[in-house]
């Protein structure tokens, strides 16, 4: 009986977590490896290249790959490999932080709306629908243009466009869980509303939210790159991938590798987040599991 003094939930939870790690599939692993590699590359950029991402060199304009510059140089003679490495910092930071903000705010609002129902629900979701009624890219564009293209503002703008999606999925999740028998059993046992919502229902909807987060990080990276491509990202000479594609596009007839390298970088990162999200969904979604 002495070992029962520990909360009996602990070993079970640990086992469940280990099980999840073991159940991760190939696509999640590939995605995770790519993201981790890119994060490391961004952190250790100064050790991976001797060049500065912004130092211009008139003597080496538009030099082809090889020849001292791994991926060549752009029209200002800046080393493309260095710009890619440093550029990863912006894509990763904006992509991840924007979605973390959207996830926390959106999930919380959605859970409250779904659990309380009634007028709170109607008002909150009406606001979310109005935001959602707008093409995300255009909304992000307009916001950034109006409030100014700083890192913080871009994060806020992208988070703003993504919040309703999290609110919706959290609300839908809470509403299904709320009517499930275990939630009713909790009410019958006299547990308080917040306890049921945060202790019992939230763990049930979190896996789905995590899947969404990963997929939305892919979208956020894409949106950030699109903004930079349009010319509304971080101002030059900051090495953003989208901005690099734009500069490459302006020289597309003479040297197409300028656009190609950052395009591949964007594709790789977006693909990695999508792979993680997809893989997690297969693990999490019981319907897909049953079918297999």
């Amino acid at each position, binding site marked *: 009986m002495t070992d029962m003094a520990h909360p009996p939930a602990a070993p079970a939870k640990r086992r469940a977590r280990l099980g999840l790690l073991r159940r991760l599939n190939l696509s999640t692993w590939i995605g995770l490896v790519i993201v981790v590699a890119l994060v490391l590359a961004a952190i250790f950029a100064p050790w991976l290249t001797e060049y500065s991402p912004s130092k211009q060199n008139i003597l080496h304009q538009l030099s082809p790959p090889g020849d001292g510059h791994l991926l060549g140089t752009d029209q200002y003679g800046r080393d493309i490999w260095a710009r890619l490495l440093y550029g990863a910092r912006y894509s990763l930071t904006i992509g991840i932080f924007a979605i973390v903000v959207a996830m926390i705010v959106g999930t919380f609002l959605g859970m409250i709306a779904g659990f309380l129902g009634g007028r709170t629900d109607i008002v909150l979701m009406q606001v979310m629908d109005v935001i959602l009624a707008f093409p995300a890219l255009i909304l992000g564009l307009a916001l950034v243009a109006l409030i100014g293209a700083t890192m913080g503002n871009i994060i806020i703008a992208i988070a703003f466009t993504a919040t309703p999606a999290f609110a919706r999925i959290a609300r839908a999740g809470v509403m299904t869980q709320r009517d499930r028998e275990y939630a009713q059993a909790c009410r*019958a*046992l006299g547990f308080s509303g917040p306890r049921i919502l945060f202790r019992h229902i939230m763990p049930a909807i979190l896996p789905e939210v995590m899947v969404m987060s990963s997929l939305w990080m892919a979208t956020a990276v894409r949106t950030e790159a699109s903004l930079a491509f349009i010319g509304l990202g971080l101002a030059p000479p900051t090495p953003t991938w989208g901005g690099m594609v734009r500069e490459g596009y302006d020289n597309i007839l003479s040297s197409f590798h300028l656009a190609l390298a950052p395009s591949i970088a964007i594709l790789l990162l977006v693909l990695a987040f999508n792979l993680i999200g997809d893989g997690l969904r297969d693990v999490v979604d019981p319907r897909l599991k049953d079918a297999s």
Partner: protein
Amino acid sequence: MTDAAISVRDLRVSFSGKEVVHGLSFDIPRGGTLALVGESGSGKSVTSLAIMGLLPQGIGRATGEILFGGRNLLGLSERDMCRIRGGEISMIFQEPMTSLNPVQRVGDQLAEVIRLHRGLSGAELEEAVLEMMRKVRIPAPEKRLRQYPHTFSGGMRQRIMIAMALACSPSLIIADEPTTALDVTVQAQTLQLLKDLQQETGAAVLFITHDMGVVAEVADEVLVMRHGKVIEHGAVHDVFSNPRDPYTADLIRAAPTLAGARPEARPAPEPLPGGALPAAAEACGAGATVLEVRDLKVRFPVHGGLLGRVQGNVHAVEKVSLSIARGETLGLVGESGSGKSTIGKAIIDLAPRQGGEIRVAGQRIDYRDKASLAAMRRKVQMIFQDPYGSLDARQSVGSAILEPMLVHGLAKGAEAQERMAWLMEKVGLDPARAGSLPHEFSGGQRQRICIARALAMEPELIIADEAVSALDVSIKGQIIDLMIGLQEELGVSYLFVSHDMSAVERICDRVAVMYFGEIVEIGPTPEVIRQPGHPYTRRLLSAIPITHPDQRGSRRPILTEDKPSSPIKPVGFQSPPAQWGRLGSDHFVRCEA
């Protein structure tokens, strides 16, 4: 051999290399009915899929011989099987609600099978469809054939399935639990229809079921399966009279016994003074009253119109009064939609109440007052139909039992741990497994966990909402025994909500019969079953399958289909006061005008 519609020889089915049916052999003569009986996981449904050639591709594999019309079905190509399926062998499935394509008109779905196998088209085809719909007694078939499945009730959908199965005069019909999802009165109608049509067409029937009552009604021969093996095979009379295997005997015993007998002649009810039910304390005799419900009303608003105004109310529960004494079990029976579950939910505040008074242990519950609500929750607990669904899948079972004690401050620390272990032992579980998650337990064990969790609150009343309905027959008996044992030891009372008469008969002291939101009869269980006073009670009881094939023909189900007016009433509707009569000392029946 020659007169067999189908012969199965040493059928073995495996999934991904794991064998689930171990050598099954049987014959069904033309026009005969073989009942294949077993619980979940016995391999009975897999057998039917193997005959139809519908095992999941690449995963399921069948070996042995299935001889049908001189050919071995297991050797046929997919194209040949397509010609046999629906034409020469047809199938009826368990779930009428999901077995029809929701986005195709019913007539078109019926027409498809006729066009495929009988090659009809145009007006001829439509006439054939209408003829089949008339045969399965669908009212107004000309109109109905252009409608979609969601406008049909479960029973009607199952009749459409039967029409599809019989449309091409098959020589074999496989019926896989065709009535399990239906209400008992609808089951009786459906079985009758199936029997009539089988006689008309001379088809052989492979009837798959877990319900020995249904077997007694329909089968010529019985084959009992367990874990993929045949454990008993014989003529229906022999099996029922002299079951060789104890498992078969258990299955037979699980069928309702009292209810299966012929109802006795009943005396006329003696009208009560004032026409109203007597007060609760009086009605439930001696002993303290644990629960008293007076004129409970539950209504759900129906919204409509441009602004979503309330246009009417569904009268889910209408002026229901009942009471339960300490240590007593009251059964609440009725068919789906009768409001029986809603009563339990309204008591425990999981459904809204629009009127009435509820007293627990003499205390009137004020649902707007937190303290009063908390007091009620300490004394009244609930267990649900789906034990897995009613446990948090991420919480260890020990923690699930502990949580209510900790939240309500009933026990702390080591004392709570000790009590949790004690509770687990009480419900027959090993306390060492407290750290396991719900999915590591079987269905019956999970229901034990739910019972332990409910008992953690030391309740005086437990509302059991279809608590044994989802369990296999053998498990069901164990859970009922556990509940009875706990009642004797702890003196707890039960409100036992169920549509399952065999369970009600075993556990309930008294029973109340619900019909469209109202109680129509209430009294001691044996009296209500032997001398049903209300026409609906009689109809309900007559629909329960017989317990022995010898009783065939002795009792005809009452197959009238008088639907009462819609339960949706306009705003402000008041139902007329009920007139009650007395049949026994505490057996009351509603007198219909």
